[in-house]
């Protein structure tokens, strides 16, 4: 129904709304424009895939551990607390 006559979503606009697209926050019209453009633009498909890879890589960063000094100070604090 909304397939035809939509103004095209150029690459420059698409790169601004990728997070909204991924979180399903685009209006139905913009979503249709987004997907119509993507179907025809390999560069934007590449960009989207790299964006997804970036998010996945961020999610797999190991939690940075505290330095041993800080850890010891923390343990002391815990000990002090449990003796109260």
């Amino acid at each position: 129904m909304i397939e035809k006559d939509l103004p095209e979503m150029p690459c420059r606009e698409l790169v601004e709304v990728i997070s909204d697209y991924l979180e399903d926050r685009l209006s139905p019209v913009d979503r249709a424009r987004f997907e119509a453009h993507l179907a025809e633009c390999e560069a934007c498909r590449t960009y989207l895939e790299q964006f997804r890879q970036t998010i996945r890589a961020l999610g797999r960063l190991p939690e940075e551990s505290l330095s041993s000094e800080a850890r010891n100070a923390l343990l002391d604090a815990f000990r002090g607390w449990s003796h109260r």
Partner: protein
Amino acid sequence: MLRLALSRVESRAVAEEVVQDAWLTVLRSLDRYERRSTFRTWVLGIVVNLARSRARAERRAVPLSSEFVPSVDPARFLPADHPRWPHHWAVEPAAWRTPEDELLAGETRKVILEAIDALPPAQREVIVLRDVEGMPSTDVCNILALTDTHQRVLLHRARSRVRHALERYFAATEAT
């Protein structure tokens, strides 16, 4: 917690103090935890508050810039008056040849961490909580006192910059 604290204060030593203070605050105020949020959200909220007051104390005011900053360098797109492809890619993103499971190998991980460090504090907080910690957006908005829209703008800018850092890194290393 540490990375979150680091997003507001200058040095690692100060960030570690903030994390310690946060644990002490958690222990002291456990009886005031009201279960209106998950425990994790409550704890991270304490970290943010302490880090912010610490940063204020250390004179670093954090401006919330609201002006529009493009996610991708405008020079990479064709001009609006291009006869055939207005606002389409002029310099297309090159495919990454590095397989995804190598994306967290030592060097690449360093690139990502450095990119996070280079972000403005507000963007850094959001991307750490959302993408690194995997926290839902409603919790992030609560902790950081952001509107939903502002949170999404900050997150998208931050992700765009990290992707760009990876792109630059791969362009340099894969070229050979």
